[in-house]
């Protein structure tokens, strides 16, 4: 049995060496800075400053049941459009939990000392502007004659980006506006949602009325 004891000792020794590295740590709650909870499309008629239209889509509790607000557009009118993507959870998470690993979460604010602070969360639009060659926003109106949309901006390679647009409405009617943000699409001047590939970061749909 002496031998038996010795071998047990060897095993116990080895176990103690390996066990030292594995004391239970607490589960860390990640700061999900990549999420997008909110999409805001602001449209304004340059010839008539009183004519502003806001389309607002948000799902802050991420339960798949968004709150959508739309306003009616005027018929046969040209709007300038500006879109914003926000992560309204990012700031909330940071407030609730003291994050010791904060240095690991690289955000644009940290990198560039932007003073631009939204009062409602982290602005993903800036990241998209910075990585414009890897992103494109697609707009699909159904039925197509309800409104036409032109890109007003381009990326570093002269390809469409879609953060600034021009929207021209047709005659009165109702339909939908589908807004899709693609990450790493195959970009070209005539790329469509179907041919661009890449991965979808945002895919939201608004009911729109032109009157």
């Amino acid at each position, binding site marked *: 049995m002496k*031998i038996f004891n010795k071998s047990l000792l060897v095993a116990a020794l080895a176990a103690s060496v390996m066990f030292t590295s594995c004391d239970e740590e607490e589960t860390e709650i*990640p700061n999900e800075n990549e999420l997008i909870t909110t999409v805001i499309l602001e449209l304004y008629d340059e010839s008539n400053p009183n004519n502003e239209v806001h389309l607002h889509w948000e799902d802050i509790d*991420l339960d798949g049941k968004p709150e959508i607000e739309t306003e009616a557009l005027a018929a046969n009118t040209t709007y300038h459009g500006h879109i914003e993507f926000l992560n309204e959870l990012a700031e909330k998470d940071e407030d609730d939990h003291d994050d010791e690993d904060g240095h690991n979460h690289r955000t644009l604010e940290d990198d560039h000392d932007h003073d631009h602070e939204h009062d409602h969360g982290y602005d993903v639009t800036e990241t998209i502007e910075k990585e414009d060659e890897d992103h494109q926003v697609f707009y699909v109106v159904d039925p197509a004659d309800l409104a036409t949309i032109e890109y007003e901006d381009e990326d570093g390679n002269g390809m469409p980006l879609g953060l600034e647009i021009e929207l021209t409405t047709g005659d009165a009617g109702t339909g939908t506006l589908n807004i899709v943000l693609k990450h*790493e699409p195959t970009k070209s001047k005539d790329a469509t949602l179907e041919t661009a*590939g890449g991965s979808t970061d945002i895919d939201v749909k608004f009911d729109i009325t032109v009157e």
Partner: protein
Amino acid sequence: MSGLPKCYASIMILESSQGMITDSLGRFEFKNICPGQYHIKVTHVGFTPENLYVDLQENSNQTISLDRNDELLDEILVHGETVESLTKVSNVLSQEKILFEANNNLADLAAVISGVNVVKNGPGVSKPVIHGLYGNRVTILNNGIKQAGQRWGNDHAPEIDLFVADHLAVIKGVAGLEISGGSLGGVLEIHPGPIANDPHLHGDVNYIFQSNGLGHTLNSKIQKGNDIDQWRIVGTAKLIGDAKAPGYFLTNTGRRESNFAGQWNHSMSKKWKINSYYSFFHTDIGILKGSHISNTRDLKSALTVKEPFNNDDNFSYKLESPRQSVNHHLLLLESNHSLSETSQLSLKYAGQLNRRNEFDVRRGGESNTPAVSMSLNSQYLEATLAKDVNVNLSYRAGLQYNYLINKNHNGTTGRLPLIPDYNSQIPGAFLTFQRSYLKSILEFGLRYDLVTQNVRNIERNDIGNLEVYKYNNLAHNFSVAAGVSRDWNTNFTSKLNIGFAQRAPEVNELYSDGVHQGVASYEKGDPDLTAEHSVKAILSNDYTIGRKLFLQTVFYGQYFKDYIYLKPANDTTTIRGTFWKFDYDQTDALLLGADFNFSYTLSHHYKLDFGYAHLYAQDLVNNIPLVFMPSNALTGRLTYTIDDQGVLKNNSVSLGGKYVLERDIIPQVEQEELSPPPPSYVLINISASTSILINKSIINISFKVENLLNTEYRDYLDRLRYFADASGINAVLTLNYKF
């Protein structure tokens, strides 16, 4: 080995190149040999070649034992121990075969055996499927230790260097009573093999080049041993670039591997031996660029294009996101002590540390920040007592304890983990009996495991904030198995194995929650799952006529109550659009299958092999075929052996083919209709090999071409099938230098 003399084995003295064949009683005799030290190599069809070192000073008798091998001669695995299971149905691949396929992954290698398939995620990632089951249900034993990697994801390949294997065995029945975790689907065993008692330094140097992916693999193995100490060191490095499908490169499908293993066996006394083994495995694997999609709209686009999105026209070794980086450490300490002539006590400790990082294409310059980062620490202790009660009866009893700690490094990732942090303690015990009775061997065994899980899951509360929720689970796993093996006559052997096993749901099945990149699928666990129960019966018949004909049939049936599976569910809508959702669900299932192996030696020169595997898998509750089951497949090979040409020995050329049938499913949801199982396909391959004997060294050279006709195909169990064709033509040159 059965202990029976082996007739017609070939025996060669390497120093003098003298060779002979044993007679019908298995005897051999070399006359008029000068005293001295000799290396002897013994080979026999169906057995692992045995290398022997003999110090010959006077006339002497040598008894040489051989281990069974060869996948076609389905047989028992024995390593000179009396209490190895004799009734389990297994298939074995020899070292030669492993080397011949060593450009592939471990799972691809095992898939040479009929009844074994792979689930893949492109050329770099594959895991074994045995009789239709995989993941949590297939246990991988490395050196007798259950591999503690992340087994739950289809994109998690086993972290094992196949060069450490002397041979590889697939056990198809419910044989795993000595293994915790109810191996309902079978076991894949990697055996490093014994180290010969030989005062000279021996070893192997292997180099493999493959044309597809311009891959280089370099491996070296050295070993030495005497009565007291034996050691072995194995090192491997692999560099493979983008694979090429017919027509285009599969951008970002390269991989790298660097592995090391060291083994030291020491005899403390005649009765007490200790073994130690350490291995380190590191791999970086690229996942096809074009598979970076998120929602079902992206998937639809990917399905309609001929060439994957974001594909590069040029070949590259570069690895970008999406990619994986995995480290795995294994430390094994073992003590074997003969308590008496008839009993042996073995104690084992095994520690494993698995570190996995997965990188996604991310915004904000975070592509080099892992999206999944987790470590799994496994601590394992075992005590086993083996006892021969008398010549006909023996038993083994064991106690085991396993402690698992799974930890996500969420602070780094900035993402919610796919599976939660957990600690799991699994104490277990088993008892097996073996009794021989006339021409039959009977086996019976039972096993019990207590499974505790302490889970810390991050969930979103009603107002969208994240909170940690704790779950403490407790489950009991019972299993029982019985087997009988009977030699009807010298040509005909039957084995029947019946087992019942119970498996408590694992953490991924209970709490998975998130989108798996690459398949646009949202996987959701179910905390209310109950244990699954299964009965499997497997009947194997081996029939031989001399050395000419061999026929093996394996029939099996497995019934599951509350089978846990990923069920295609209705879409789920998020801000990123609509996702194809899979829910962990339970049903009753029936798997019926058959594996056939047929081998016929037409003449001294020609040999013909056929294999066929068939599987019927039905969801009994919904009365539809089970999804994600392997396709039926037929393989064939004609080998022509060329007579020795001077220094060129063991020359052969062969032509092989594989016909994979289309899998039938009945689509239940839209996405299944969009991506039906791919059509059947045929792959042709050729190979040639030779051995050159120089002094005491052997150089083995083999050349093969896989997918000779550069066939465009997609495989049902390859996740890459949504995006691209599988790899095309691949020429592989293998050089092996043995000294």
